[in-house]
């Protein structure tokens, strides 16, 4: 058995692996955000990296001097209208909303109206297109999964069969694959560095 703090797939180690946009550079992505007037969406399936990407986008925008207001909402932990209104009293240039498609239709309608009325930007994540102009669609691949696993533990990354099987079993959901690798490591099922 491997202890939690020594598990190469522990959450703190996974979170250190940041998003690398595929087919576009970071300067180009930021330029696109600017062209879209800071009102756009990041789309993708569960576990495809939307949260990681939007966090990195917010961080890079803050470095340029933009003030970001961050909201994170999930079906298990939904943000209330009271909480949204409270956030709207903050001073910000861009609202970063992770999980926009989890809002009720009227929350989304009024939130968008109020944010735009303030001439602020709004960057969101969603599982489906259509909430705002699409900035980027998160996609995954076996190659991407292998790259991520290699950053966390080279020995595990060498097991190509395992990586491919896990990718298929979890339908490309990299978050769930990494959780499974955590468990397999914890149970001593994997050879690690």
């Amino acid at each position, binding site marked *: *058995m*491997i*202890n*939690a*703090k020594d*598990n190469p797939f*522990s*959450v*703190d180690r996974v979170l250190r692996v940041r998003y690398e946009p595929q087919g576009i550079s970071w300067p180009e992505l930021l330029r696109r955000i600017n062209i879209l007037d800071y009102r756009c969406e990041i789309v993708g399936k569960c576990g495809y990296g939307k949260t990681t990407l939007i966090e990195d986008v917010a961080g890079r925008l803050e470095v340029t001097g933009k003030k970001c207001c961050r909201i994170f909402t999930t079906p298990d932990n939904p943000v209330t209208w009271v909480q949204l209104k409270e956030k709207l009293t903050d001073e910000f240039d861009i609202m970063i909303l992770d999980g926009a498609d989890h809002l009720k239709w009227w929350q989304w309608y009024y939130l968008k109206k109020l944010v735009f009325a303030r001439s602020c930007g709004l960057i969101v994540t969603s599982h489906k297109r259509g909430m705002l102009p699409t900035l980027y669609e998160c996609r995954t691949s076996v190659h991407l999964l292998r790259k991520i696993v290699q950053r966390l533990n080279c020995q595990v990354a060498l*097991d190509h*069969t*395992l990586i491919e*099987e*896990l990718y298929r*079993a979890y339908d490309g959901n990299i978050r769930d694959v990494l*959780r*499974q690798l*955590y*468990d*397999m490591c*914890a*149970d001593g*099922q*994997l*050879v690690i560095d």
Partner: protein
Amino acid sequence: MEELNIELKDMKTEYQPGQEISGTVQWNLASQPEKVSLQLLWYTRGKGDEDIGLVDSVEFDNPGQFRNQDFSFTIPAGPYSFSGKLISLIWTLELLAEPQDECYRQEITVSPTGSEIVLKRVKSQYGKKTFKFGSSK
């Protein structure tokens, strides 16, 4: 080059609740810091999100670019240092210099015996679910 260091008295790293933890911190910075502080805290690592508990801290007045400074804290009643499959709880002293954003950590253990408590699997009365893939080990 920025240098920070924490030296524990008698190089002791294992503590029991209620004991004093003391030693000396040293820093040698390339530029004048605005703030140098020492924190006693615990944090978790593992499958879930990180939790942090700041237990005590001291900020050193007029820090200067280099100094040797004594410190002392009292170890609280808990939580104890432990490690299991899903979660580990780790105690640490953290020396921070700002705005350089330099940090030095010295891990310690806290428990009634001074050693980390290792959590072992408890056999469940229910059947265990396993997940196996192809030819993987």
